[in-house]
């Protein structure tokens, strides 16, 4: 933690970056984002197991962008996010520093190639727990899954916390806010909620880097990450593609291979 604070101090004092986006201790023992712009305030930075939010979400917020060049305290998910954002031309190589805490120290990644190398070294395969969680739902009958999701979506109030918390949902005007035509119903009724959640999952297919912040943000406790994780599995299984691994790559759904599987097409 001290290494992180020292590094932040140093970067701010030298003017290398204008802001360090990191974690501080918030209310009720939670960790939360902090935007340190003054070296003297770097002492409030923390990094521990309570630091779960994917801070890369702030890279796309206009208010934060306005602060100037940033150093981002980056857990593995944030590193993958940065690569995916780079692949989507939202982040420039060298436009950002990543501070990756490691064994009491902190690695400073200035280039996207370094981020790629680190992500490759971490190779975050879904853990056993995660695989088993998905498998549990896949093992349900169709009717069980339908009932499960209908029950879940019935609790959705369309507060769009899932969208706001997602670092890859960065459109200035989301499809649900376009009304000519009104593609997704505005009201949070059952059909509107299903359509919204299908839309969200599809628009993230091949792009989601599995940070899980959508589920953590949901005030209704809907396990939205399962939808994303399912599509991550489909995209990986069918196209051998994983988002957030390379700074230069096509999106899985905006490219193709002539030999993509088509056993279901007749």
């Amino acid at each position, binding site marked *: 933690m001290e290494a992180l604070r020292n590094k932040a101090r140093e970067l701010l004092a030298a003017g290398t970056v204008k802001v360090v986006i990191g974690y501080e201790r918030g209310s009720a023992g939670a960790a939360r984002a902090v935007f340190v712009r003054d070296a003297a305030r770097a002492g409030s930075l923390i990094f521990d197991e309570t630091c779960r939010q994917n801070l890369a979400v702030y890279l796309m917020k206009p208010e934060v962008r306005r602060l100037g060049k940033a150093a981002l305290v980056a857990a593995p998910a944030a590193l993958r996010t940065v690569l995916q954002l780079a692949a989507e031309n939202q982040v420039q190589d060298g436009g950002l520093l990543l501070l990756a805490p490691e064994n009491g120290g902190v690695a400073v990644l200035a280039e996207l190639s370094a981020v790629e190398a680190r992500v490759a070294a971490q190779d975050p395969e879904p853990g056993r727990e995660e695989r088993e969680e998905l498998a549990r739902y896949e093992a349900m009958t169709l009717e069980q899954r339908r*009932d499960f999701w209908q029950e879940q979506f019935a609790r959705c109030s369309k507060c769009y916390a899932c969208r706001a918390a997602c670092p890859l949902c960065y459109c200035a005007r989301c499809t649900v806010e376009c009304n000519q035509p009104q593609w997704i119903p505005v009201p949070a009724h059952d059909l509107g909620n299903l*359509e919204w959640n299908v*839309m969200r999952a599809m628009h993230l297919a091949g792009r989601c880097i599995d940070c899980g912040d959508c589920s953590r943000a949901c005030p209704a406790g809907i396990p939205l990450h399962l939808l994303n994780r399912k*599509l991550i599995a489909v995209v990986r299984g069918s196209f051998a593609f994983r988002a957030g691994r390379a700074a230069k790559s096509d999106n899985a*759904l905006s490219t193709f*291979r*002539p030999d993509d599987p088509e056993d279901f097409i007749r």
Partner: protein
Amino acid sequence: MAEFDPKIVAFVCNWCTYAGADLTGTSRMKYSPQVSVIRFPCTGRIDFMLLLKAFAGGADGVIVSGCHPNDCHYSSGNFHARRRWIVFRGLLDFLGIDVRRVRFSWVSAAEGAKWAQLVNETAEQVRALGPHRSYQRLRGLGVG
């Protein structure tokens, strides 16, 4: 009990399948009349939401069909569409929506007979599955 006549909506591309369906008609081949055909410039334009809109609007089954691989009028629209279908099918299944209600096919302008067969088989399959009530009942739920 009266025989259930499924409503089927077919989203087809203009250049191959629509022409193929046309050929079915001009060849005087008979096929299930329960299908409503909606023509698109290309399968690449058939957004996944359209399929859900069809279900919400009362469709019991959906057909999506276009040019065979390498025959796309715009060279790769169907390849892109195929990827989207693969992902979308996975999502539908995961959400508990029966993917047997959604048939994907390649039907060329010369395959009038294949179109007739596709519609008939789909109608048969959807008839066996029964009305898509679980989806249709969503409409209006959750309004106080």
